[in-house]
């Protein structure tokens, strides 16, 4: 837990933000999905984002590695601004790993090839080295024995662990998770959360959209609650769960915790 404490300490010292949203707005056609998002994440911080369906959670974190473009305001990741500049986008995507709800593994490649693809082609790592690193991460997600299988041969939980390992293989400074467990059967959720907790313990900067409140309580440094494209409340888990400020948050918590 030392790493975690260090991170918290840095947070308190107001260390420089690794992700910085300033007054970000985004529209889908006429529809205003993100409204004046002002928000920053410090290095080593673990953020959990929650909120009702359609509130813009996915959109927000997809803006961080520019899978979506915002139309107003500024997003800085690691000091680099998100704009049309392809070099910037490339640099940032190398540094930001992402895990999707539906895993999005490449079905035509083996697990090992899934993991080594980006290191080899983007980071230009020698193949051998990339494979060694991949095996290392596969071991960390406890799935090294499946390296030569294809994604279709694995269970959902295993696939999601592979997806996390794939993200880690690029040695990112930030990991984004978009509801990583919501497409999984209940028995498999735990194995994925365990991997994520382990990752959190190692001090990785994480932004995670999830409804797993247990996870939020255990690992989050801050919980961000969104509704209708706005950040309604952002607070430590302790404050957030026990003493929510907004009635909207209270309502949401009552629904989700009673479920």
């Amino acid at each position, binding site marked *: 837990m030392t790493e975690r404490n260090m991170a918290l300490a840095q947070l308190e010292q107001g260390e420089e933000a690794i992700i910085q949203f300033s007054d970000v707005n985004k529209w889908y056609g006429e529809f205003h999905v993100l409204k004046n998002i002002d928000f920053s994440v410090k290095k080593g911080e673990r953020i959990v984002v929650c909120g009702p369906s359609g509130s813009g959670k996915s959109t927000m974190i997809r803006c961080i590695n520019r899978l979506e473009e915002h139309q107003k305001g500024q997003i800085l990741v690691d000091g680099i601004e998100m704009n049309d500049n392809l070099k910037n986008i490339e640099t940032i995507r190398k540094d930001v790993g*992402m895990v999707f709800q539906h895993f*999005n*593994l*490449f079905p035509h490649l083996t697990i090992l090839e899934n993991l080594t693809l*980006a290191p080899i*082609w983007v980071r230009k790592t020698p193949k051998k080295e990339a494979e060694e690193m991949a095996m290392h991460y596969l071991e960390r997600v406890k799935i090294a024995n499946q390296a030569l299988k294809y994604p*279709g041969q694995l269970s959902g939980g295993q696939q999601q662990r592979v997806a996390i390992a794939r993200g880690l293989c*690029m040695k990112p400074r930030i990991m984004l998770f978009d509801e990583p467990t919501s497409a999984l059967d209940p028995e498999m959720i735990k194995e994925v959360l365990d991997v994520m907790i382990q990752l959190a313990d190692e001090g990785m900067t994480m932004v995670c959209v999830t409804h797993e409140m247990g996870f939020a309580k255990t690992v989050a440094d801050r919980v961000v609650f969104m509704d209708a494209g706005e950040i309604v409340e952002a607070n430590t888990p302790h404050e957030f769960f026990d003493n929510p400020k907004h009635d909207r948050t209270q309502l949401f918590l009552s629904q989700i915790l009673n479920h």
Partner: protein
Amino acid sequence: MTIEFKPSPSLPPPQSSVGAVAWIRKNFFSSPLNIALTLFSLYILYLLLPPMVQWALIDATWQGTSKAACTAGGACWAFIGVYFKQFMYGLYPAAETWRVNLALILLILLVAMYAVKAIHKGLLTAVILLVYPVVAFILFAGGMFGLESVETTNWGGLFLTTLLGVVGIVASLPLGVLLALGRRSDMPIVKSVCVVFIETIRAVPLITILFMASVMIPLFLPDGLNFNKLLRVLIGITLFSAAYMAEVIRGGLQAIPKGQYEAADAMGLTYWQSMTLVILPQALKLVIPGIVNTFIGLFKDTTLVYIVGMFDLLGRIQAANHDANWLGTTTEGYAFAGFVYWAICFGMSRYSMAVERKLDTGHKRN
């Protein structure tokens, strides 16, 4: 006081509902209409089959050097025998046909090597797509390495048909991929160039494209530059099938879930990297049946080159039909050609159906 439930034994169905008799009754005589249909079909079979068998087999003549030898009143297969070499190779010099055969055997061997695990698939593909065509061309055309030169006007028969079909489909694949990607691009000019090309080609019959290739292309080339008619026709055929190929591949691209594109993007792959490493391998595999179907269509369409004066299998048969020694053997010639085309196309369509089924199960597993 519970009673134990013992399922009563399954009995065999009544005789009237199973077995050959029931099958026949159900399929042939279940209703008055059905009986009428059965009788009608039997009558058609009676009209067609016995005379056909009589003509094609019983009364057929298999040996001979002219129509005069065919006295039995049935099919004169001797005609096919005499012209067989021409039907296969056109006017390719008889002493040199081993070169065509060798190229074919080479190709079959190369393709068969895909089954060998130890060989690197990418390397093999590169050999087939890059090295083999050069070797095959040298073999066919000669004029090098002590091979006697054979002009393209002498290439013909099934050899030419196959050449046109295979070159057309292989060359149209990369072009089709580019066009399909272009059509899905969000750059308006790229997109419209591709759309206009694809839709124009698909709107007109192949025969107009072939006429363009054989009559109009020379007019568009600068003075002194001109190329071989076979090459021009190949260009025409390739452009034609590329437009159809593009649509097939576009279907495959659309079938790849959005998440695959996003995952590739999120990993920092560039556009071309994500296309060649992630999207296209999946999309192409998905559309193999579509590609095979395009190939079947193209293979049948190669017959049109006869209209612009090239002598493919159909052309050679048509020419042989005019031989004074063999007047009256048109039906035999067409039957032979029909059988060859049918066997190849039907075989391929079965293959594509098998692939489709295999791909299907592959998807369910995922």
